[in-house]
């Protein structure tokens, strides 16, 4: 519904209709991807056990977890490739069981191949047709150039290396102007340059308002591009949230001498302080805009304190992930 039309539809003075229109306008935007209570068993083994998650438009969400945590199975259930035993999926506002929900979805599978007897350009043309999209050949070629395969458009895919196939897979995922892109281990076969390219692609997708689900073993990659992270362990969501929520507050460690009462008061004003000899650790506020540390150092120097060292400290996503997984196993699994 075009919300701009709402006042024209409502008769002047019809307060109830106007209130209803306002209510609809105020509803939170439909997430690009949403699932609730997904379950999947293979024989006796439970692969996915009650996974719920949501990805907003223009949001980049990372899926993390050890091997066999159920990440790929969750992705396949979201895309209708695996039938869930229970649970509900909505893709771009439509039920996941309806194939047309995937009209604006791009997907790069983890283990895949494209028809080896087709050329790279033909693979893209095939996917544009299957998506029911109308993408001119120039734009299709642009996708190949974006992933560095512009010069190989007329070559058969059978002769491509694994890394080139992965680049082609990224082009396939992007070619039909998707609103949601699901990348399952998109950089597993890529060199460092290729990984940087993928990062740039993901960031440019986010800028264009495209939602991205990124499943990657490379935690650094996830940390750099993702707005939110969902950690899966043994088929369940072990933790989820924004990076700031998951990683907690930032800290700064300071090696100081000549600390007077005024300097101590200034330290305490910056945040909770822990002292250990000449070292002080200050927990910074979550809403720090990056000026707290330089201002603190400037003020301490002004108060006559000798500042020997300033070490920003932040728990890495990797440490946090390992912490979550070890806590989940309950027995201090190595």
């Amino acid at each position, binding site marked *: 519904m075009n919300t701009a039309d709402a006042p024209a539809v409502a008769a002047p003075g019809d307060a109830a209709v106007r209130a209803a229109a306002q209510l609809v306008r105020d509803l939170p935007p439909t997430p690009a991807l949403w699932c609730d209570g997904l379950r999947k068993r293979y024989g006796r083994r439970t692969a996915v056990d009650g996974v719920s998650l949501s990805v907003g438009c223009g949001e980049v969400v990372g899926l993390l977890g050890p091997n066999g945590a159920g990440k790929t199975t969750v992705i*396949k259930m979201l*895309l*209708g*490739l*695996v*039938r869930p035993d229970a649970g509900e999926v909505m893709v771009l506002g439509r039920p996941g069981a309806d*194939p*047309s*929900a*995937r*009209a604006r*979805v791009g*997907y*790069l*599978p983890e*283990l*895949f*191949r*494209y*028809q080896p*007897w*087709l050329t790279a350009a033909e693979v893209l043309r*095939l*996917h544009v*047709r*299957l*998506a*029911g999209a109308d993408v001119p050949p120039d734009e299709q070629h642009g996708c190949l150039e974006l992933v560095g395969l512009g010069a190989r458009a007329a070559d058969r895919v059978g002769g491509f290396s694994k890394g080139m196939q992965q680049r082609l*897979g990224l082009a*396939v995922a992007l070619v039909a102007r998707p609103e949601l892109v*699901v990348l399952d281990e998109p950089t597993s076969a890529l060199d460092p340059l290729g990984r940087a390219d993928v990062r740039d692609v993901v960031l440019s997708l986010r800028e264009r308002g495209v939602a991205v689900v990124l499943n990657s073993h490379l935690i650094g990659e996830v940390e750099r591009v993702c707005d939110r992270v969902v950690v899966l362990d043994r088929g369940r969501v072990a933790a989820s949230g924004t990076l700031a929520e998951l990683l907690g507050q930032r800290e700064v460690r300071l090696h100081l001498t000549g600390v007077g009462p005024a300097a101590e008061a200034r330290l305490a004003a910056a945040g909770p302080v822990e002292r250990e000899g000449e070292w002080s650790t200050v927990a910074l506020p979550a809403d720090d805009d990056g000026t707290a540390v330089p201002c603190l150092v400037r003020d301490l120097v002004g108060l006559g304190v000798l500042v020997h060292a300033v070490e920003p400290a932040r728990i890495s996503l990797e440490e946090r992930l390992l912490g979550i997984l070890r806590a989940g196993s309950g027995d201090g699994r190595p």
Partner: protein
Amino acid sequence: MTARTVLTIAALTLREASRRRVLWALVALTAALLVLSGWGFARLASVETEFGAMTSGQARLVASQLLNLVMFGMSLIAALGTAFLAGPTLSGEVESGISLAMLARPVRRSTVLLGKWLGLVVFGSGFVVLAGLAQCLVVELTVGYWPPDIVGALVLLAGQTTVLLTLGLLLSTVVSPMASGVVAVGLFGATWIAGVVGGIGQALGNDDVARVGTVSRVLLPTDGLWRGAMHSLQDPSALAQFGVELEGFPFLSEAPLTLAYLAWTVVWVAMVWGLAALAFSRRDL
């Protein structure tokens, strides 16, 4: 959208057959069969029996029998070709991961299956019709025999190919690509042999043995369709002349197909296709 997807997949299947050299392998095999049979039929015209040279009537009769034999070879090539194409087309693509990206598109699996089936039917039937027609022309040029109902024969042979590739598709939704090809061709051969056994049973007047052929022809209609095609290819006077002596002979068909049997074949194909679609749409990739 659905029709567009079906045609896209059908065209893709045909392109695969041509780019994977299946087409060229079939063309080479068929050309060899045509040249050899042309040579054989040319020699037939000049064969002398112990009673002297064959009359033109005898030559036509023998030619019509030989034509059935050669056409059986042709249908075997088509059966092997399509069964081994139909097998890898689904389970092979699932195993290799080709299906993952394709089926994540806004397409129904049954639509993709229909496209593949259509492509294979066009490919298999096209081959049978062209190769069969070429074979009949060779026979016409060498011994001057032209089958009484060439159109009917070719349609039934195309039907036989369709039946077998539909079975290949169903098998490929549940077993591995190689197994599905092997099982489809094995069943094809078993049904033919059961048909021959049934014919012998009929000749000997043993109803139980004769029933083997009837039952197998209902379970898998390839042999029934083949017998119908033979009937359209053979000289009508052959039956009148050899009817009693050659009862049970595997390359002589006694009666044309009934409408009921043709209807059953259509139902069989629809049923097996439906099962394949159901199995494919429920399969986890």
